[in-house]
Structures are given as C-alpha cells and as structure tokens.
C-alpha cells in the first residue's frame, strides 16, 4: 500500500538516521559517551622511563636498551551489569604522569584508585582505596617528604603515607580536582573546578590561603622566585605572592590555560589552548613575546638546552627562543599530542594519542626511536 509503504520507509529512515547519527549501530552495554583513553606523560629516573599506556597498563622501559624492565602491569576496573549486560572488567584510563622514587612508582587511574608498584619487580605494593573506588582521578600523583598527594573528581585532595598507602589527611574543595598538585617546601598548591587555588600545609592539610579566580583551575601551578603562577579557564595567568596569596599581576590570553607554565631566566612561558605560547616577565607580567603555533596546546612544555620545547595538539613540535627570538619546527609526529612532555639528557619523550612513545632529539628534531605501546 502506498501509505503504508511511505510511512514505513520514512519511519525506518528516521530510526536508522537516529541510530547511525548517535554512533550506536547496535545497542551496547556501555553508556553512549566518549571513551576515556588517557594521556599519561613520562616519568624519568636515572635508568628508566615510566608511563601509563592507553591500554591501562604501567609500562617500565630501560632508558638505554629500550627493553621492558618488567612485563606491563595491567590495571582493571569493574564494569557494572544490569539491563541484560553482564558484569565485567575493562582497562583503566591513565591521565596522570606516574611519580617514581628509587623504591616505588605511583600511578593514579581514572577508575578512582592509586597504585604503588615496586620499581625493581613491577609487583603491586599497595592500592588506595583498598576496597571501593574514589571518583575518577585525572591528575597525577606527587611524592614529597614520605607522602604521596593526589586530587580526585570528588573534589578532595588526598595525602597518603608513601610507603604504606595509609591515609594521612584529606582536604575538601567545592569542585572537581583534575589537576596535579605542586609541592614547594612545606606548602602544597592545588587548583579546583570551584575556581580557587589553594595553598595547604603538607603536614596536616590545613589551609594557608586561597585565591578566588573567575574560572576553573586544572593547570598545575608553578612556584618560581617566591611567586605562584597559575593559569585558569577564565583565560588569565595569575601571579600570586607565595606567602599570602595576594595578587601580583594577571595576564589575559585568548583561551584556557590547561598546561603547566615554565620559568627560565626571569621569563614565564605559559602555553594556552588558544594555540599561543605567551612569554612574560616574571616580575611584572609584561609581555616579552607571543609565539603563535596555530593549534591548541594542552601538553606541558619543557626546557631543553636553553630552548622551550612545545608540542601542539595537531602533532607539531616546536623549539622556541626569545633571545634571539626564534620559532623552529622540530618535528611533526602527525599524531595528536595531549600528554605533557618530558626531557632527559637532551632527549624529549612524547606519548602520542595513538599510544606511541617517541624519543626526539631536542636540538635536531630527529626521531631517535619510537615504540608502539599497544603492540607490546
């Protein structure tokens, strides 16, 4: 029948369009959202590189031989069942860069757990919390003075005993914490989605001061020359007095600050998601130079051989200088880059969004080696 045919076809088309457009060819057992993959950076010790792969594994690589120190350590999360979906487990996204000491490597997972793994063997020493899970952890851990610190999406900053994993104290903010804390002496600095930067006593988590911004804070603060530099989603980079949190100056960029700023020779280098690296006088905030790299920057830059090495999301890596002013393309990895960069002995380590670890010469830009983490 004409009417039946037309309506049936139109309805079928509508349903098909809906399903296809939603990216759900077949109803699945997971919520229709993006898949968290992670963007762990590389932690470097004298002999080894540690990073979290996008398969949810802690990878340990010998720096000289490029061989695995031990088999990758997998971390799994529980997946809830219901509605005909069986309970199961899946890999954990790892966003934070691991923190390595001579004895243990600490790794935070998007499943809301922090793990401590033996550096020599890869054996799990402890996990916190032992039973349940916290809300997703996006920032990385920081180890200092026998304590490990990290923030969670539950808005809390946790301090644990680095050896045993026992909880020492908690500080509660009013928004999610996605950033990695910074520790300088007896003070810990952490930003929150509640638009505040907090300065806490590392001994007990008590509040030293707090600074109210106009936007959420994800970027790890930089402490340099008695000043705390912290970028916010309100597009400002704030320079605050380390002693009392009073404002020294602020500078506006074109978009969010997501990555950790750098300091060198009295100049602050702050990369923004606006695709520019802003070089400012540390003392006054006066603009020294702005390098337009034409792609958002969420990866934290590093300093190598007197140059600022920056990777943009589109995959291009640049070497920047202000004296003489120079913007030199080092290499184009043709792969998206979100993970913070790491440097050691003139070699830049870059973990790409395709889960490949690249070693790039900081001077020449030559790719010394690359390792596909997934295939191992």
């Amino acid at each position, binding site marked *: *029948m*004409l*009417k*039946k045919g*037309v*309506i*049936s076809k*139109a*309805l079928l088309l*509508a*349903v098909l*369009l*809906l399903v296809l*457009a*939603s990216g*759900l060819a077949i*109803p*699945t057992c*997971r*919520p*229709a*959202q*993006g*898949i*968290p*993959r992670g*963007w762990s950076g590389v932690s470097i010790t004298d002999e080894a590189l540690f990073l979290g792969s996008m398969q949810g594994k802690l990878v340990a690589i010998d720096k000289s031989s490029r061989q695995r120190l031990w088999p990758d350590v997998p971390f799994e999360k529980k997946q809830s069942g219901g*509605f005909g979906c069986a309970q199961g487990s899946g890999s954990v996204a790892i*966003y934070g860069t691991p923190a390595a000491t001579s004895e243990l490597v600490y790794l935070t997972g998007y499943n809301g757990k922090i793990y401590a793994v033996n550096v020599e063997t890869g054996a799990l020493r402890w996990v916190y919390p032992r039973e349940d899970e916290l809300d997703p952890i*996006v920032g990385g851990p920081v180890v200092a003075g026998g304590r490990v610190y990290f923030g969670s999406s539950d808005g809390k900053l946790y301090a644990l005993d680095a050896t045993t994993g026992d909880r020492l104290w908690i500080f509660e903010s009013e928004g*999610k914490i*996605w950033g990695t804390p910074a520790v300088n002496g007896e003070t810990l600095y952490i930003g929150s*989605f509640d*638009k505040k930067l907090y300065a806490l006593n590392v001994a007990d988590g008590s509040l030293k001061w707090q600074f109210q911004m*106009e*936007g*959420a804070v994800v970027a790890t603060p930089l402490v340099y020359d008695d000043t705390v530099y912290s970028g916010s*989603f*309100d*597009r400002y980079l704030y320079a605050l007095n380390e002693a009392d949190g009073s404002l020294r100056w602020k500078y506006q960029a*074109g*978009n*969010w600050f*997501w990555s950790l700023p750098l300091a060198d020779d009295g100049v602050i280098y702050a990369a923004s*998601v606006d695709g520019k690296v802003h070089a400012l006088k540390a003392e006054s905030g006066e603009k020294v130079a702005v390098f337009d790299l034409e792609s*958002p920057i*969420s990866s934290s830059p590093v300093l190598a051989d007197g140059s600022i090495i920056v990777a943009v999301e589109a995959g291009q890596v640049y070497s920047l200088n202000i004296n003489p002013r120079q913007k030199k393309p080092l290499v184009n990895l043709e792969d998206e880059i*979100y993970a913070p960069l790491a440097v050691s002995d003139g070699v830049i380590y870059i973990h790409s969004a395709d889960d490949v670890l690249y070693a790039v010469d900081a001077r020449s830009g030559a790719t010394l080696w690359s390792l596909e983490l997934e295939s191992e």
Partner: protein
Amino acid sequence: MIGEIWNLIILSPMINVLIVVSGALFNNFGLAILVLTIIVRGVTIPLTLRQLRSTKAMQELQPKMTELQKKYGKDKQKLAQEQMRMYKESGVNPAGCLLPMLVQMPIWIALFQSIIRVLAVIPEDFLKLSGHLYASWPQVFSLVPLNSHFLWLDLAVPDKYLLLPILVGGSMWLQQKMVTPKTGDPKQQAQSQMMLWVMPLMFAFITLQFPSGLALYWVLSNVISIALQYFITGGWGGLTAQAATKPAGADKKYLKRLTTAEGKEPDYAATEADIGADVGADIAEVTPKEGAGPGRYQPGLRAMKRHPKKSKHPKRR
C-alpha cells in the same frame, strides 16, 4: 569540512547559548535544557502544525482508504493511483508527519555533544569544549564546567533510577497513540500497533544509555507534542475509544470527483453513508457526536436506506 560547518552553525551556538542560559538560571543546566526544548519546539511550530493537520486529515481519510481498497483491491496499480490522487486532492502528505521529528534530529545530536562537553564527563571531550567557546562572550569561560545535578538526575549519565526511560517511553506512547488512526484493515491495524510500541520502546532503551540531559529534552518535547495535539486536534484522538471521524473539506473534493467519475451526481451524505457501511464493524462502532450536523458519518442508518442489500450488518436494521 562538514565537521567545521556543523560546529559553526549548530554545535558552537548551542553550547554557548546553553552555558549562558544556564548561568542566567541559577547555574542550573537542567533548566537550560528545558528552555532549549521550548525554544526549539517554538521555532518548529509551523512544521508541527502542518504535521498535526496532516495527521488529522489522514485519520479522516481512513474510511475512504478502506473503500478504495475494497473497490480496487485486485488492481494494485489502480489502487495506488487512486490513493495518490486522494492524498493529492486532500492536500495530505503522509511523509510530512515525520518532518518535525527529522528536523529535530540534528538538535538531539548537538545536544548530546553539548552535554558531554560542558559537563566535564570525559577529559578528552571536555578539552574539546575550549574550541567552541565564543571569545567575545567572557562569561562562558567563567561558567564551565556546568553543574550536572538536576532534581534526582546527574544529567551527564543515564538515570540510575530508571524513571526517565519510563517517562520517555510513556510520553512517546501517549503521543503516538493519540495520532494512530483507527482502521478496519487488520494488516494496517497490526502495523499501527507495531509502530505504536516500537518507537517508544526504542527511545526508552536509548535513554538507558544516553546522558539523562538528552532524555530530559525528549520528555518535555513529548509533553509539548501531546498538549499541542490535544488543543489543536481537539481531544485525545486515538486514546479515546469513541474517536469521531468527520470528513475534512478536502475530502468532499475527492468524493465529488469519485462520484462524478462513476456518472453520478455528487451526494455527499449518501456517499459518506456508503463508505460508512462498507467500512464494516470498525467504522460502525464510531458513534456520531450528539448534535452532529451534515457531514458527520451516521454509517448504519444511511447505508440501510440507500443500499439495504449491501449492508453487512442485517441485525442492525
């Protein structure tokens, strides 16, 4: 390229407007979604009205459809031609019923993409939000990420209490039921019943997997549809057992042509009665409203007067 156009024309404006509206409504993203729903349904109201008229006309043409099937049942080609002619002359476009839904589909997709970005669910999605914010609207930078809590819901994830899937499915069933035409054809009846259940169940199932912010849009949108249908078509339609079918003005044009082709003078009342009688039990159950004037079906009585031998319900004489 298509992605850039999509972002420029649909996604970025929606994200920025949702953020600003949310800020104006006490940082309540749920209220912003409800306002968006009202805006979208308001903008598409001409399409909705057209759809409702089409639906109503289709319901009214149902008896004539059955008549045609009886008349040309064996000649499929002729039947198709006559049906097409009937739709054309009555100004009905069967596919037009779906236009409002199709128009809203890009809105659903954009709303889904907006939700996963502005609520900071997955870091990768949230980071992409920065590229959508309007540099000239400083307040949007201060407002993100938005608060995901609304009533009992976390708008970023499916409703764990299952209330929202029930509301989505239930409201869609109600809306569909109101516009499902009554028919005497068992096949058509079965198909109508299938469609009546398939779409609500499918949307309820999808609601189990999508962020509840999207389902919030669907629920309010369905409620708006139900209200419009009630006030514009004048009642609960297919929900009530005694749904009256009266011929639209356009039908008379068709009836005139039909009878003229048969070499008779048009006699609307009699022709309507013929149809009423031949439709059989289903239409015979339709009770004319009290005080129904000319033009309303009074199937049993008129059919007996004109074609007593054709009546299939001798007991009703």
